[in-house]
């Protein structure tokens, strides 16, 4: 992790990067304001900011935002619990993996967006169908990363557990899982990104609430400033979420990692 002592020097590359971004924003501003590009296709940065402040101030955004967050937390939380839980079960009892793997692989192979219509039939267009979709988007990544991490446990650690006569279950909890943590967290991070794809997509398809719903509504109203604002918002949420998972990992593992 970047320490505070190592202050980064601003290089020519950094200056060029900032200049490029500024030029792009400036182009958007001028192109839209002069009418060179229709504001259906592009939005001026100042309009995006104004739109953002507006939908926050008039109370439009917050309820939708909270609904999306809730769907993600519940769906992703369940996926984490089930993914890691099943991973542990498979590790302790390899027979259960042998039995269940083919089913999990089959469900995983289905492009999740294709079963959205079915989920809506079963669970309605509300909260539940979103949670299930996010769950399906995330659970396999978490499961397979847990199991792979467990299988990559160093032979010598397993020998130590054996020499000290650890039972199977003790070996799993004292040796295999701790050594699988990096892989588990990789899975959690990957799953977090796909969970966002899941929620936005399903809300855009059919919903009465959520950020994805707002997004498709803004699109049908040709409100490009709002579309741009929401895209930025979703991106920031996703980045913050992934970062939060990295922070949890850091809190758990940094003490024994070589820095």
């Amino acid at each position, binding site marked *: 992790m970047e320490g505070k002592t190592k202050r980064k020097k601003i290089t020519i590359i950094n200056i060029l990067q900032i200049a490029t971004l500024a030029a792009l924003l400036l182009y958007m501003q001028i192109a839209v304001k002069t009418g060179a590009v229709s504001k259906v296709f592009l939005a001026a940065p100042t309009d995006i900011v104004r739109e953002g402040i507006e939908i926050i101030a008039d109370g439009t955004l917050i309820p939708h935002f909270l609904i999306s967050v809730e769907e993600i937390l519940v769906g992703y939380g369940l996926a984490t619990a089930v993914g890691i839980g099943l991973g542990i079960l498979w590790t302790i009892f390899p027979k259960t993996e042998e039995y269940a793997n083919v089913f999990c692989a089959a469900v995983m192979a289905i492009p999740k967006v294709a079963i959205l219509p079915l989920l809506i039939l079963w669970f309605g267009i509300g909260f539940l169908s979103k949670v299930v979709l996010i769950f399906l988007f995330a659970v396999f990544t978490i499961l397979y990363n847990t199991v792979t991490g467990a299988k990559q446990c160093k032979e010598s650690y397993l020998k130590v557990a054996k020499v000290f*006569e650890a039972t199977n279950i003790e070996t799993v909890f004292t040796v295999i899982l*701790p050594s699988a943590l990096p892989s588990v967290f990789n899975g959690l991070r990957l799953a977090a990104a796909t969970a966002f794809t899941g929620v936005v997509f399903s809300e855009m398809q059919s919903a009465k609430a959520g950020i994805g719903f707002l997004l498709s509504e803004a699109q049908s109203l040709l409100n490009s400033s709002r579309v741009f604002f929401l895209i930025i918002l979703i991106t920031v949420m996703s980045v913050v979420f992934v970062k939060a998972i990295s922070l949890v990992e850091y809190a758990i593992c940094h003490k*024994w*990692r070589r820095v």
Partner: protein
Amino acid sequence: MSLGLSIRRQNKGCETMPDIKIKNINKTYTDASGAPVEAIKDINIDIKDGEFVSIVGPSGCGKSTLLEIVAGLLEQTSGEVIVGDDTVKGTSRDIGVVFQDSALFPWKTVKKNILYGLELSKVPREEQEEKLKNYLELMNLTGFEDKYPSQLSGGMRQRAGIARTLIMDPKVTLMDEPFSAVDHLTRCTLQEELVRIHEKEKKTVLFITHDISEAVFLSDRVILLSPRPSVVQNEYKINVKHPRSRSDDYLVQITARIVADINRGAAAPENDYII
């Protein structure tokens, strides 16, 4: 087999009873293509109670294989190993193993690593703490108990690995090239510490190394294995009292003799390297 207490017989009068008896041990692996690989062949070794025996031999001759069979980590193809009064069938509390790269768990502190076995066997906290204190002292680790392995030097890690094994008070200790990954000076220090501990505790040790002078410096007896499929090629008694000097004439001579015997063995006409 971890059930109940293993009843240790008070074998006061019977000095002749070996503590480790390796009887006609064979191990044939199957390689990736399914062909058999004969690693060790008809190994017979008796190790007396309290004896320090080293096994040396060229790399890949089957030293680790033999150690893992004695430890109960690996099943032999044929033959039998008896430790104390019991035939080895899987790992046991009586047999401690120290691994080559220390194999400490990086996610546990030195303290938690050393206490790993005691925690698994549900030894009361106070007893754990007391033993920990003793073994930290014995291995010169006091003050490092809350460090993680990644914060220690190679020598320190190896000391912690040894403490983790010795704290269980095993009847016999098996060590597989424990000092091969540390620098020369640290290795010399660790060797001297090991001698000091062995002089004090007089426990049976089976020590594996490819460093002949290390074997000669430490052991009561050195056993030389031939190249694969390895058999006991020769055996050397080192009748020199501890503390030994590394420049002791007798030790230097015997080291030279073992080296010569290895070279002779490796140059044998029926060379098995090419199959």
